[in-house]
């Protein structure tokens, strides 16, 4: 279990402000945010590698705020693996055993279990300099888990890997988490990664936590424009609300909910905006007419920008639909949005 209470950290010009988080035992928690948001700083603060100015850090009920890194029961795995280059893979994995007073037989059993689970039996005698990215990351994980930590901190463990290894390590992380009692705390800037791994998550921006909660909540109920944008709601408009209606410029949207305040925002995922060449014959009330302004090729799909009076919508469409509908820049088009697809806050 990890708890931080009103944590403040000052590093030169960079500040982390009032970080309060609660992570249950054996949870897979993901901290997300853009590069430079302060994610790694918070991770290193949990490990005791960065001094805190005020606030508390509790790990499994123990106040470790003033503890040195070696007394916290926290292992860290870096994006660049940080394996000890002068030691063999086996010695890297065994490195921490000495300090944790682990019985030799137990350590040996644990070692062979981890080596088998992570499939690194064939490289234990080799030096890190000769290994591939995927192998390095598996060794780093084995080394961290070998000492049976209360918490394992993962600093963007997938981002330095080739796509082939990334998938492999992602599955491995999921398995390791389900077979150990360790709490996993992972930092990433990749929302898709978080979605596939995390139970709970927090989103950080400029040194502050924007929102924390279940992955589902963050994905579908963002509380700020920053989080909405981060989780892929590319259409965010400030709106005035009256009953179940939101007024954006000249347009009115029917929504299923409304925020407590009269002024707020609506946010819509691009994939929830349906494009059609004629007005759809359906119960959808939010239908607008506009002109295609831009079509951006995104590989498997296209992003289509549609201008309707004073608003620009971004919609996502598959390659085949684009050709079927004959959508091209300058064409007239209808947009349909279900009331339930409009998130309000």
């Amino acid at each position, binding site marked *: 279990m990890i708890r931080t209470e009103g944590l403040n950290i000052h590093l030169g010009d960079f500040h982390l402000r009032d970080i309060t988080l609660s992570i249950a035992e054996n949870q897979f928690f993901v901290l997300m945010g853009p590069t430079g948001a302060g994610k790694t700083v918070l991770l*290193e603060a949990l*490990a*005791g*590698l960065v001094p805190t100015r005020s606030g508390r850090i509790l790990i499994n009920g123990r106040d470790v705020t003033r503890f*040195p*890194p*070696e007394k*916290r029961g*926290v*292992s*860290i795995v*870096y994006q*660049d693996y*940080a394996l*000890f*280059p*002068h030691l063999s893979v086996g010695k890297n994995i065994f*490195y*921490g055993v*000495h*300090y*944790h007073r682990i019985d030799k037989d137990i350590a040996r059993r644990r070692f062979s279990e981890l080596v088998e689970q992570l499939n690194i039996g064939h490289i234990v005698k080799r*030096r890190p*300099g000769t290994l591939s990215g995927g192998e390095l990351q598996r060794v780093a994980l084995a*080394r*961290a888990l070998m*000492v049976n930590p209360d918490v394992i*901190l993962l600093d963007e463990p997938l981002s330095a890997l080739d796509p082939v290894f990334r998938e492999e390590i992602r599955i491995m992380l999921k398995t390791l988490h389900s077979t150990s009692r360790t709490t996993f705390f992972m930092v990433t800037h990749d929302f898709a990664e978080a979605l596939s791994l995390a139970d709970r998550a927090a989103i950080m921006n400029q040194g502050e936590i924007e929102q924390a909660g279940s992955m589902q909540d963050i994905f579908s109920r963002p509380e700020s424009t920053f989080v909405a944008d981060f989780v892929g709601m590319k259409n965010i408009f400030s709106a005035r609300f009256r009953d179940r209606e939101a007024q954006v410029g000249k347009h009115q949207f029917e929504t299923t909910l409304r925020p407590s305040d009269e002024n707020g925002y609506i946010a819509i995922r691009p994939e929830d905006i349906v494009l059609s060449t004629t007005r759809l014959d359906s119960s959808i009330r939010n239908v607008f007419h506009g002109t295609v302004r831009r079509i951006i090729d995104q590989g498997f799909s296209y992003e289509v920008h549609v201008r309707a009076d004073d608003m620009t919508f971004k919609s996502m469409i598959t390659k085949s639909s684009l050709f079927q509908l004959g959508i091209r820049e300058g064409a007239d088009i209808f947009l349909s949005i279900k009331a339930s697809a409009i998130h309000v806050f």
Partner: protein
Amino acid sequence: MTRKEPFFWITVSCGVVIMAFILLPLLQMITAPSLSMMNSTIQDKDVISSIWLSIYTALSAAGISFLFGTPLAYFLARTDFRGKRLVESIIDLPIVIPHPVVGIAILSVAGKNHWFGQIIYELGIRVMGSVTGIITVLTFVGMPFYIDAVKDGFESISPRLENVSRSLGASMSATFFRITFPLAWRSMLVGIIMCCARAVSEFGAVVIVAYHPMIAPVMIYERFEAYGLKYSQPVAVWLVCLCLLLFVVLRLIALPRKGEK
């Protein structure tokens, strides 16, 4: 092949001139003394003791730099603080101060007119005209070279390795001895070579602090003054040969083995 521009030939010819400028005097000096002269010189007890004193004092200076400079180099490589640049400049000061000035400066604190000089005098330490004095001077001029080399070495080791070691349960000192030192010892050896090389070549500061006992450069100077070029050459050749041998051996140890990174 494309025709080279004149600029290319300018760069090459400058290179040739500089090579000749360095090698010609050295080759001339090394080949000038006859083998029999070399042989009789090395049997001269004064020569042996002065060369030995040179090597011994230079190694001592490197040893002191290793003991005191290593922690400081580590501190400078890992810590940022206000005034760090100033501290680094102070460490490099001995490199830019003219050599006789170094001698004068050391004597002015080691003399009996200074409180520090009085204290060490009471403790029975003599700087003027002693081996202690020579080692003091050589440490003064050699230490910056050691600290700079080792600081670069520490800086090239990712602090993340130390972070991981700490999080795995190792204390700060255990981390230093199990991770940092094994990864940095080569740069320490390079630092020792740099420090020794600088110390062995020191003359100006040493003549002021201790003309006797005589280190090799002072003896070379004395023989040149008293008997001329011919008699100073063999001593010089022996000093250069022995120092080169020492540095080559140290350098070979410092080379990375096959398969190591």
